């Protein structure tokens, strides 16, 4: 059997009924945030879809994005990888290694030139000629430019590939940049998040298969269906924000009542992602539901955007704010930091409630 047959042919050979396929498409519609009644139309399109070749390149990354995908609950990885796409190169998942692995990438690039999808996770180091990250003796920059030439589109998975991410955080010792800083002549879709929601990764691939095109993107190159609204707008705690009910510390009555975490530094109002509805771990919950504010991990430079525990309405210089009342008369800087640490330790030993100012330093 040809590895790149249509999905319909493949499913028919496996004895999958049309009802089962319709169920699958219903799940796909839900995954792609499309109207749930569109399952029949998706089925018609998908049944004729050719399985695209996918080359996945991992650069300066922690493998968290691949972990996210392989923990994808809906649909299962087996469905995605073996039925919907032909994953021809992924150096963490593939069985081949060394020259064999590089040859499978080269073969896919030649056989499907202009048609394959290139998925990238991780940022690309440029400093010192990109020597800080290499694969098979080639720099990430060299490999990316080479493989992108024949790609139909590039999917930048994770905040590192989309915006530079943590490697790009100050002082950015490797000169890390995003895919879009290097590739200028191909459509690029950014699926940001640290890691991105697995359903969003699979949903974008499913969209490409169904419609043969990339979904509509926002100004940062992210699919609008998942990044069109802020976490805050879709948060179940939003009504408390509107009522002015805020948790003031992580263990006060407001926190126990599930009130809004804005004053504890939640970045939900400025963060675009689907965590509040798609959720994590098979729809179990998401950080805010677990009692911690959103870190804003799907936004550019989230690591350098000030303390995770400063409210968005506070000035961007949290140290000065914290020193105001606590250490009046003391030298700003080291003195403030020591005083805050002392206060935190004193509160800890006295089993007092820690405040947001205590947590900052």
């Amino acid at each position, binding site marked *: 059997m040809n590895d790149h047959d249509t999905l319909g042919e493949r499913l028919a050979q496996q004895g999958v009924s049309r009802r089962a396929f319709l169920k699958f498409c219903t799940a796909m519609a839900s995954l792609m945030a499309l109207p*749930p009644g569109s399952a029949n139309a998706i089925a018609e399109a998908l049944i004729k879809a050719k399985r695209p070749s996918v080359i996945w390149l991992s650069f300066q990354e922690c493998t968290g994005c691949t972990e996210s995908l392989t923990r994808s*609950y809906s649909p299962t990885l087996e469905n995605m990888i073996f039925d919907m796409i032909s994953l021809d190169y992924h150096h963490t998942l593939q069985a081949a290694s060394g020259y064999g692995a590089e040859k499978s990438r080269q073969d896919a690039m030649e056989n499907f030139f202009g048609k394959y999808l290139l998925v990238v996770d991780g940022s690309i180091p440029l400093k010192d000629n990109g020597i800080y990250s290499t694969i098979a003796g080639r720099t990430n920059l060299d490999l990316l430019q080479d493989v992108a030439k024949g790609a139909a589109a590039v999917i930048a998975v994770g905040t590192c590939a989309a915006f530079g991410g943590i490697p790009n955080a100050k002082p950015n010792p490797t000169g890390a940049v995003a895919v879009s800083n290097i590739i200028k002549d191909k459509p690029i879709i950014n699926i940001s998040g640290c890691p991105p929601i697995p359903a969003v990764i699979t949903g974008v691939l499913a969209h490409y298969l169904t419609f043969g095109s990339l979904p509509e993107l926002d100004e940062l190159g992210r699919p609008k269906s998942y990044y069109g609204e802020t976490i805050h707008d879709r948060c*179940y705690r*939003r*009504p408390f924000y509107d009522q002015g009910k805020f948790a003031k510390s992580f263990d006060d009555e407001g926190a126990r009542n599930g009130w809004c975490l804005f004053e504890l530094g939640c970045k939900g109002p400025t963060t675009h992602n689907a965590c509040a509805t798609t959720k994590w*771990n098979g729809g179990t*919950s998401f950080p805010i539901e677990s009692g911690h504010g959103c870190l804003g991990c799907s936004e550019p430079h989230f690591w350098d955007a000030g303390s995770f525990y400063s409210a968005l309405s506070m000035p961007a210089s949290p140290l000065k704010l914290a020193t105001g009342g606590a250490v009046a008369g003391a030298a700003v800087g080291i003195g403030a930091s020591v005083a805050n640490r002392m206060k935190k330790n004193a509160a800890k030993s006295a089993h007092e409630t820690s405040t947001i100012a205590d947590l900052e330093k």
Partner: protein
Amino acid sequence: MKLPGNNLKDIPVKTDNAEEYSVGNIRALQAEIAACLEKLAETGETGIIDLNSLPFAPGEYEQLRQALGQGEVSARIEAIGPSEIIETRYPGVWWVTHYNVEGDIVADLIEISWIPEIMKSQPDDIRTGLELLRAQLDDALINDEVQQ
């Protein structure tokens, strides 16, 4: 000692009863369902609500279950994992939950229709079944002829 498996359901987590906790999603959903049901009754137009796309507060999902209750029909489909179909206490309002083979929910819908789409036999499957039935009849005919 039994070690926990790698399934979420195997992790012993105690959850508080959140029955009383609501941010108003249930009433809004009930109103939407009522509007869809009115359309179905008057024009025959069907509707589907994707529960995965809604920002439920903890406990609200269970509250919705209680609010809609269970009616006269329940069905189970086995197709790449089970699917549960329950007609709620409001005829024409169906709760359709699709699971994958690992038992995780892959789609969770409120379908407002005469009968959920997934319960209908599909034309392609009917044709395949017909071919199978005809082949069996042909085989039986040949066997009868051989025996005669």
